[in-house]
């Protein structure tokens, strides 16, 4: 039987008919359309039981309560905790992005030891036992040589049990070199000490104030406890509270204020003293709560006549008088300071002058006023016993010079660390422990800082992230992130009450990381002797529970402990500390005609935490475009340099030179250039690295003559077409 053409065609037609009558084509069409509607490579998030777990956010000092939504054991969303005394349900952009930090690829996932060149990024994974052994052998060796003081530790905070454990370790070990990173807290503590003669911090009853005079404080740009500030800002709007923002640039805080007073950068102290002089000369002061008024008054009136202040500050004389009157007429006026988020310490002169305004308004320790809040004192550990080696080490001067000589009044001077290491210190540093800080990015004059770090033979980083500093480290002992650990979070941040939050593990540790408190206790125990004796706790959780005592139950139950009735550290303000010279910007006026000032944005994390992808996504294309960063200038300033919007320019200062794009902004004083802080990372991942410019490359520290704190508010600069 031959299959001829007609038979074949018949077969094909039969096949086609049969196929059409079978489900094959129709089912395949349906299936392929379903397939194409939902590509299999698009992730499908697994469903499960939804639970909320409460904790405290510690990404900034704000201390907000958070409620984390979980689906089974995955954290899927961070929300503000309703009813929390700090944020009552609100949350900031960084707090919302926390899960990108928890699950993000920039985590350091296991302890590691450097095997390549420094900064090359070559590491060997090691076990925690090996890591602890490397650390303790190194430290024991140095200590046995009688050089315990050549070990330093830098941390983001000195309050709460974790920093306290690290401090205690340094003491028991025998090093005076525990350093807290710089912030407005430094100037605030010093001002409270100088004005009130006692240890404490300033708290502000913002919610009850009826006139707010802010000397550059970024009220809605991340100052203080950011969510509390947003809430206060809305409350002020509802109550028609006058808010005056004194600042050279129309920041968001200035934009939200009822009045923006542009000022020459760095002359805020002069304006505060000028306003004080008007108050005094017009008898609009309440001297009930101040001492030393007589001599101070004559100094003030002779040095700060309105005309002179007007010239210095660029604020019209009638505006100065107007501000003074507004301040005096209000029942509960409040003056605030600390530029932007308050990331730079600032000068004592400025802080004291602003706080003096509050004192002269009779608004100390009152509803709607400024409070002298005691430091939290719940950590009551017996003093760590020091053996001979430790005592000898502790007698040595600090590497940063704080607490002695001309720096007698300061506790920490991280801004002097680099110079100390680079040869100006009393001895070379052998080991640096870095916890919750990123000095290689955040300290001014990054070039100098990097040179200093290159000289330190052994750097240990406890960072959870591959930031610039951990990139320079020799040993990585990664901490859990805040969502994985227990920790007490004492909240300062300008609150006029005492608040302690509790961070609780919302999810189990995602990687082979270890709680810093645990690492410190383990290291101390491994070193034995008096060091081990100083750490009687078997683990961190026991330490935390015992330390918190009766507060523990409250914290476990509600997540937060609050003391609203403040017992102020002092009531009388001794007017002092305002006679120091003004802080000048570094650089020669002729070579560098402009003033460069950093500005803070709530959308750009300025502290230790690098901006997560969500936050970077919200940054305007006039701040970052591609990899390019921008500098903001008034159109007048730009046209004088022949520049216009988007142009590439060279921005140079005495400390460095960068290429940036120009963004024209009418809301900035002519002659001033502004650049966002917190960008220009070299570490992290492609979502953050190499975007924009790190303003710290351009600005160096300027020492406050009263304390040695960094008081740099800007630097002289030059713009030229690139």
């Amino acid at each position, binding site marked *: 039987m031959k299959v001829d053409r007609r038979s074949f065609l018949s077969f094909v037609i039969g096949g086609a008919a049969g196929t059409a009558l079978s489900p094959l084509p129709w089912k395949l069409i349906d299936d392929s359309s379903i397939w194409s*509607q939902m*590509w299999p490579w*698009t*992730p*499908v*998030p*697994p469903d*499960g039981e939804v639970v909320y777990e409460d904790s405290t956010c510690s990404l900034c000092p704000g201390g907000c309560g958070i409620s984390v939504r979980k*689906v089974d054991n*995955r*954290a*899927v*969303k961070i929300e*503000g905790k309703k009813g929390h005394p700090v*944020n009552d349900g*609100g*949350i900031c*952009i960084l707090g*919302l*992005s926390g*899960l*990108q930090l*928890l*699950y*993000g*690829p920039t985590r350091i996932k296991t302890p590691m030891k450097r095997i390549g060149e420094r900064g090359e990024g070559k590491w060997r994974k090691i076990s925690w036992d090996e890591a602890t052994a490397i650390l303790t052998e190194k430290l024991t060796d140095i200590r046995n040589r009688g050089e315990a003081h050549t070990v330093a530790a830098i941390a983001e905070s000195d309050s709460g049990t974790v920093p306290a454990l690290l401090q205690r370790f340094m003491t028991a070990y025998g090093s005076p070199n525990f350093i807290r990173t710089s912030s407005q807290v430094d100037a605030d503590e010093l001002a409270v000490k100088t004005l009130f003669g006692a240890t404490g911090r300033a708290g502000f009853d913002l919610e009850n104030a009826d006139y707010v005079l802010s000397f550059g404080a970024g009220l*809605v740009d991340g100052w203080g406890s*950011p969510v509390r500030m*947003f*809430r206060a*800002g*809305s409350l002020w*709007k509802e109550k028609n509270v006058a808010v005056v923002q004194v600042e050279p640039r*129309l920041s*968001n805080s200035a*934009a*939200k204020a009822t009045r*923006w007073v*542009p000022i020459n950068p760095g002359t805020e102290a002069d304006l505060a003293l000028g306003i004080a002089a008007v108050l005094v000369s017009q008898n609009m002061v309440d001297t009930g709560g101040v001492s030393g008024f007589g001599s101070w008054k004559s100094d003030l009136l002779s040095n700060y006549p309105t005309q002179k202040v007007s010239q210095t500050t660029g604020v019209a004389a009638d505006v100065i008088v107007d501000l003074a009157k507004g301040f005096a007429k209000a029942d509960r006026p409040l003056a605030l300071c600390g530029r932007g988020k308050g990331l730079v310490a600032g000068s004592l002169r400025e802080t004291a002058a602003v706080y003096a305004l509050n004192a002269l308004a009779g608004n100390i320790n009152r509803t709607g006023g400024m409070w002298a809040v005691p430091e939290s004192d719940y950590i009551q550990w017996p003093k760590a016993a020091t053996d001979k080696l430790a005592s000898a080490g502790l007698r040595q001067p600090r590497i940063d010079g704080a607490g002695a000589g001309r720096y007698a009044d300061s506790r920490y001077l991280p801004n002097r660390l680099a110079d100390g290491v680079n040869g100006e210190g009393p001895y070379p540093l052998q080991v640096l422990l870095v916890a919750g800080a990123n000095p290689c990015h955040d300290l001014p004059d990054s070039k100098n800082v990097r040179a200093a770090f290159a000289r330190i033979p052994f750097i240990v980083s406890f960072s959870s992230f591959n930031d610039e500093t951990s990139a320079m480290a020799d040993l990585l002992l990664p901490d859990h992130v805040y969502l994985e650990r227990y920790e007490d979070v004492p909240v300062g941040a300008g609150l006029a009450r005492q608040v302690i939050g509790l961070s609780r593990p919302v999810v189990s540790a*995602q990687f082979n990381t270890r709680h810093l408190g645990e690492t410190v206790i383990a290291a101390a125990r491994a070193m034995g002797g008096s060091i081990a004796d100083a750490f009687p706790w078997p683990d961190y959780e026991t330490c935390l529970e015992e330390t918190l005592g009766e507060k523990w139950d409250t914290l476990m139950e509600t997540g937060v402990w609050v003391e609203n009735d403040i017992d102020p550290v002092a009531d009388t303000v001794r007017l002092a500390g305002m006679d120091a010279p003004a802080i000048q910007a570094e650089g020669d006026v002729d070579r560098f005609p402009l003033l460069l000032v950093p500005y803070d944005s*709530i*959308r750009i994390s300025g502290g230790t935490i690098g901006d997560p*992808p*969500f936050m*970077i*996504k*919200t*940054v305007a*294309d006039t701040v970052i*475009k*591609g990899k390019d960063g921008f500098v903001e200038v008034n*159109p*007048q300033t730009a046209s004088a340099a022949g520049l216009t919007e988007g142009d590439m320019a060279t921005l140079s200062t005495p400390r460095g030179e960068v290429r940036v794009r120009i963004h024209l*902004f*009418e*809301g900035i*004083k*002519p002659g001033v250039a502004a650049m966002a802080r917190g960008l220009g990372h070299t570490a992290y991942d*492609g*979502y953050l690295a190499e975007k924009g410019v790190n303003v710290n490359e351009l600005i160096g520290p300027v020492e406050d003559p009263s304390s040695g704190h960094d008081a740099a508010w800007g630097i002289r600069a030059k713009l030229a077409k690139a």
Partner: protein
Amino acid sequence: MKHEQQHNPPMKYGMAIDLDKCTGCGACMVACMSENNIPFREDESDKLVSISWMSVFKLTNGKAFPDTEICYLPRPCQHCEGHGGHSPCVSVCPATATDYSAETGIVSQIYTRCFGCRYCMGACPYHARYFNWWDPVWPEGMEKYLSPNVSPRMRGVVEKCSFCFHRYQLAKNKAYLNDERTVPEAAYQTACTQACPAGAIVFGDLNNPAHQVHQIVKPDPRKGNKSRNPRAFRLLERLGTNPKVYYLSSREWVRRAGDNYLAHEKTGQVSNVHH
């Protein structure tokens, strides 16, 4: 035996955003991104292709230093009602992928129906719609935080703000369990409303006099739902898109920025909405 199911009176979910309170902090944007599984890429500085259902625009009064003023304006989908639910995007969608719900007043977007023609993007006067030019890719490990309540979108479809409709669904689930047929005001709030640290966003049923948003907006149905609040305005109100997002500002220049006004025109005038 066909009968229409007993319905509650139709709702009209809407928003009142107080621009006097908004600080431009961007929390609403990120609250939305993390609630709705919005993807991100290494470079998000090309804002034309950067997906952000909630976008905060920066307005300036155009005056020179020192009279410059800034106002931030958060822009979710405006959930236009148009006339009878014929919002600009719904009218042009050839795939029935976007739709207007007479029950909630929410303009929906069904990703699996969308085939990416982007007519709706052209029709939307608010740039509230975004196209997925790329497959969403989360860095390794980060897909762990994705929420099962919202499907991640695939390449080639349009997406936009849904007023967190899944939250309405979940609130309805809870109501069913308690044998209730209405969703209380507090039980259904969008992620941006909940997050806003300044409390600038108020969300609820514009039809319900008990809801705060109604009390703020006081919509006037005889004038195309224009607000009776003198501080309130809507974006491009005179186009007749009849949006359900109302803005409040005490500043005249901000209210003027909401529409294209001639020099002699005052804000607060709505020309007749064509029928």
